[in-house]
C-alpha cells in the first residue's frame, strides 16, 4: 500500500514538472512550482524525513512561490513565444542532449543499491554511530537535531553563513537607497475585512507555533531552520495585508539586519566559548560541567542562532523585494 502511494506521488511530480515545461503563463508556472514543492514535501513524509518535509512545505510551497510572484509583478507575466525569428531556440537539440545525459545517468544507477536496502553503504558508514551513541552522548530524542547541531555543527555553521551572505547579496543588489517619500500607500488588501480579521487572529498563533517548532526541535521534528521560516511567514502575512509602511513600523530595517548578523554571531560565539573552556571549536562538551548538559546548552543556543538568522534573512529578502516593487510603480 505504501509503495502504491509512493509511485502515485512520484508520477504526480513528473506530471507537474512536464506541465511546467509546457505552460507559458509564468503565473501558472509559479503555482505549479508551488504544487511541486508540496508534492515533494508529501514524498518526504513517506520517506520518514519529517524534518525535511516540514522545511520543504514551508519553503517550497510558501516562501519561494511568494518571492517568484513578487518578482513576476516586476518583470511581466508572460513568457515570450520562443520561436520568433532570429532566436536560437533549438528544442530538438536540447531534447537530444537531455535524453543522452539522462540515459547515461540511468546507466549509472545500475550500480546503486536497491531502494530501501539496509546494507547500502549510506546506511553502514557513520550513521550507526549517530543512532546508537547519541542517546548516551547527547540525550535528545531527535537524532536529526543532534546531528545537525552537534555532530555536524561545523557544516551547519557554514550553511548559516551562506544564508546570511545571500541576504547581504540581495540587499546589495536591490536595496532601495533613495528614500522617496512614501506616497500615502493604501494597503492593497484594505477592503478585505474578513481576510484582515482572520489574519489578525492567526498571526499570533503562527508566531507561537514558530517558537514551539524552535524549542521543541530536540524532541520532535523542528529546529532553527523550520522555525525561522515559519516565524518570518507571519511577518510576510502582516506586510501583505496591512501594507509595507505598516509592516516597516513593526520590523525596523536596521534591527532586522543587526539580528541577522547576531544569529551568526551567536552560533560562532558558542564555538568560541567551547574553545575558551579548553575544547575544540563547537565542542559542546566543554560548555558545562558534565558532557550531556553542555551538549544540551550548545544545541539550544546554536539552534537559536540559526532560527534568528534564517527568520531575519527571510524577512530582509521579502521586504527588499516588496519595497523595490513599490518603488517601481504600482502600489498593489
Amino acid at each position, binding site marked *: 500500500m505504501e509503495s502504491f502511494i509512493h509511485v502515485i506521488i512520484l508520477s504526480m511530480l513528473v506530471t507537474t514538472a512536464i506541465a511546467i515545461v509546457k505552460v507559458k503563463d509564468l*503565473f*501558472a508556472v509559479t*503555482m505549479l512550482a508551488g504544487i511541486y514543492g508540496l508534492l515533494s514535501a508529501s514524498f518526504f513524509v513517506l520517506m520518514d524525513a519529517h524534518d525535511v518535509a516540514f522545511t520543504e512545505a514551508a519553503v517550497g510551497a510558501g516562501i519561494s512561490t511568494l518571492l517568484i510572484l513578487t518578482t513576476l509583478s516586476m518583470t511581466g507575466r508572460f513568457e515570450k513565444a520562443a520561436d520568433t525569428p532570429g532566436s536560437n531556440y533549438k528544442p530538438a537539440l536540447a531534447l537530444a542532449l537531455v535524453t543522452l545525459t539522462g540515459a547515461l545517468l540511468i546507466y549509472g544507477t545500475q550500480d546503486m543499491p536497491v531502494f530501501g536496502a539496509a546494507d547500502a553503504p549510506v546506511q553502514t558508514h557513520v550513521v550507526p554511530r549517530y543512532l546508537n551513541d547519541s542517546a548516551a552522548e547527547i540525550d535528545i530524542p531527535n537524532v536529526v537535531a543532534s546531528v545537525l547541531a552537534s555532530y555536524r555543527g561545523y557544516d551547519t555553521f557554514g550553511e548559516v553563513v551562506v544564508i546570511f551572505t545571500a541576504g547581504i547579496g540581495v540587499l546589495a543588489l536591490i536595496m532601495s537607497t533613495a528614500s522617496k517619500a512614501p506616497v500615502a500607500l493604501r494597503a492593497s488588501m484594505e*477592503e*478585505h475585512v*474578513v*481576510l484582515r480579521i*482572520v*489574519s489578525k*487572529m*492567526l498571526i499570533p*498563533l503562527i508566531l507561537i507555533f514558530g517558537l514551539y517548532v524552535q524549542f521543541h526541535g530536540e524532541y520532535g521534528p523542528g529546529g532553527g531552520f523550520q522555525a525561522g521560516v515559519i516565524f518570518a511567514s507571519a511577518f510576510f502575512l502582516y506586510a501583505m495585508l496591512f501594507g509595507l509602511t505598516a509592516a516597516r513600523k513593526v520590523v525596523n530595517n536596521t534591527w532586522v539586519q543587526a539580528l541577522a548578523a547576531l544569529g551568526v554571531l551567536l552560533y560562532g560565539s558558542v564555538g568560541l566559548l567551547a574553545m575558551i573552556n579548553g575544547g575544540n571549536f563547537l565542542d559542546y562538551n566543554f560548555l558545562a560541567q558534565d558532557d550531556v548538559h553542555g551538549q544540551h546548552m550548545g544545541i539550544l543556543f546554536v539552534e537559536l542562532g540559526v532560527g534568528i538568522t534564517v527568520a531575519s534573512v527571510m524577512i530582509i529578502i521579502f521586504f527588499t523585494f516588496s519595497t523595490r516593487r513599490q518603488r517601481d510603480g504600482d502600489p498593489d
Partner: protein
Amino acid sequence: MSMLTTYLSWASLVLGGFLCVSGSVGLLRFPDFFTRMHAASVTDTLATGMILVGLMFQAPTWIVFGKLFMILVFVLLTGPTAGHALAKAALHSGLKPLLPGKSGKIETDANPSTGGV
C-alpha cells in the same frame, strides 16, 4: 465503546474521502470560476475536517487529540477565508458568475475558460 468509536472514525474518514473525490470532480467539471471555487473550498474545509475528525476518534492520547483539534481549528479558519478572498478578488477584477438568464437557462456567452487559474 471502542467498537463505536471505530465505526464513527471510519464513517468520517470514508465521508471525507468521498468529499475529496467529489470536490475534485467538481473542480474539473463545473462551468465557471465561482462554482469551481465552491468545489475546491468543500474539499478544503469539509473533506479535510471530516478526515481530521475521523483521526481524532482514533487518537491514542489526549495530546494527539489536542494537536489534531488545533489543526482542525486552523483549517476551519483558513479554508473559508481563502475561498472568500479568492471570490472577492475575482469579483473585483471583473469576473461575473454565470447566472440563469431570463429564459431560465444559463447564459453561455461568457467564456468558461477565463476563470481558470
